[in-house]
């Protein structure tokens, strides 16, 4: 039972409001914990606030309310100043493979940025520091090989890689920083179907082998099911169902989760379309929380 341990990330009642006319309440009171070594899938439709959660955790968005703690320390929003070294233990792989890497730099130096950060954190982190990275030092070539590319690729520019390969490089760079929280913000949604599962599986395998928690954000349930230990289902800025992946999958409790699971096409040739209820009123049902087995 994970609740016996201290969570790496502890989010309580996060509220995010984007200014505008009218202001958009992107996240309405979201709470969750992330524990070391687990893969958590955050799923939901576009615009439900998934990416905003990722931005709150990395400090790119300042929440309007609630608290996010990383190893018990509040996360400071990223401003003009350099990110606090302690918080660089939270890294992210972005959605768009076209812009997640600097097109004007070869990939080797970009991965080296991650390695340098890991070195800096090692030097600064005192003994017993929970965020202190462990493991042998690597070079960009090692990391390219770990994500299934060739060590010789480090002199190539991002433009010469395919979308899936770029997401592998972005994963390598984020993990080279030896984070203990890796967030994948829809990292596979722009990839073709045959690559999606491979990249997702690679991310979870590498993150878990480093002892990091992976928060994998996606609207593609079938891929998330393959890698996630636990699911958080979001709808309209709230978490409507949470629990172990199999429990949610086999026994969805919330009306929205049922629709979401029903929307996965079955490859039986029958060509069934998901049954969508006439309105979303049913989704306002109270959240369903599956207990850990």
């Amino acid at each position, binding site marked *: 039972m994970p609740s016996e341990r201290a969570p790496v990330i502890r989010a309580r009642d996060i509220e995010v409001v984007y200014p505008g006319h009218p202001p958009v309440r992107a996240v309405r009171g979201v709470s969750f914990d992330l524990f070391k070594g687990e893969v958590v899938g955050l799923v939901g439709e576009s615009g439900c606030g998934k990416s905003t959660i990722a931005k709150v955790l*990395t400090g*790119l968005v300042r929440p309007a309310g609630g608290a996010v703690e990383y190893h018990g320390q509040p996360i400071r929003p*990223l401003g*003009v*100043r*350099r*990110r606090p*070294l302690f918080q*660089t233990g*939270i*890294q*992210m792989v*972005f*959605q*768009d493979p076209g*812009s*997640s*890497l*600097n*097109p*004007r*730099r070869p990939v080797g130096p970009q991965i080296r*940025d*991650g390695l340098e*950060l890991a070195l*800096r954190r090692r030097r600064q982190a005192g003994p017993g520091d929970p965020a202190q990275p462990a493991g042998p030092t690597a070079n960009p070539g090692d990391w390219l090989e770990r994500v299934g590319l060739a060590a010789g690729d480090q002199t190539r520019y991002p433009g010469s890689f395919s979308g899936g390969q770029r997401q592998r490089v*972005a994963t390598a*760079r*984020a993990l080279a*920083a030896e984070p203990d929280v890796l967030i994948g913000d829809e990292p596979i949604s722009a990839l073709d179907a045959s690559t999606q599962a491979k990249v997702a599986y690679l991310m979870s395998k590498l993150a878990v082998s480093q002892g990091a928690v992976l928060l994998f954000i996606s609207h593609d349930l079938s891929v998330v099911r393959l890698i996630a230990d636990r699911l958080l289902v979001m709808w309209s800025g709230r978490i409507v169902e949470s629990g172990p992946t199999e429990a949610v999958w086999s026994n969805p409790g919330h009306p929205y989760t049922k629709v979401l699971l029903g929307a996965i096409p079955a490859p039986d040739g029958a060509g069934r379309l998901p049954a969508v209820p006439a309105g979303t009123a049913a989704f306002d049902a109270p959240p369903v929380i599956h207990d850990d087995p």
Partner: protein
Amino acid sequence: MTRRSPTARLWRAIPPGLRQPLGLAAGLIALAWLVICLIGPAIAPFDPLAQDLPRFSPPGEVSFLGTDELGRDLFSRILAGARVTIGLALVLVCLSMLIGSLLGLLAGFFGRWVDEAIMRFTDLVMAFPTVILAMVTAAALGASLFNAVLAALVVSWPQYARVVRSIVLGLRGNDFVWSGRLLGFSAVRSIRVDILPGTMGPTLVLASLDIGTAALLLSGLSFLGLGARPPTPEWGSMVSAAVSHFDKWWLGVFPGLAILTVVISFNFIGDALRDALDPGVAPR
């Protein structure tokens, strides 16, 4: 990849805009002027300041392009003047690029009040007609080449600030910039590694287009008596001196042609660079 002969590869290395006759001619003229800047005084047949030739000698008699009202060789003065006009134009463009880019980077990257302050100041400068503001500044500072460059600088940095700011605004929101910040990049490192390289191409194109304008502005100030002082061989002041001797056509035509060819050839090079670097503009 197919193998190409070295000549063909050299040809491909020339920006497409310069590969047509007009562009090629412009490129060669600009190159010739740059060479003259470097070796001009060495190949000049006479001392550009010496007043020992017959006065108002028409082209071809005593010297190639004739002599002026003080018996100085026009050809030698134009060769020596290249260094003054083009050299100072290059200095001016470099300085305005430096100042404008820096302000544009700061405004675009930091946004908020930094952006507001810098851009409102830029608007203020741009609100004045360029030549008038340069004239006023030069007149206030006193007539000298140094002050002319300073005055021209006052009016020519804003366009760089605006262009660079808009590029930075576009780049700043890119995921790779955020990734860099998440990897602990300081603002300075983020600008240097992720932002600055992206602004270089368009800024250099703008600069190359600006060389001709800068040469024109500097010789314009000299023409008005706000730049080069006699006896410095400067094209603008040479044209200015020719005004009082209108029947001696060569006095004004040749320095005028020098200015014209510099402005046109550098504009063509700027166009070619823009076409080569910006796929959105189809090469003509």
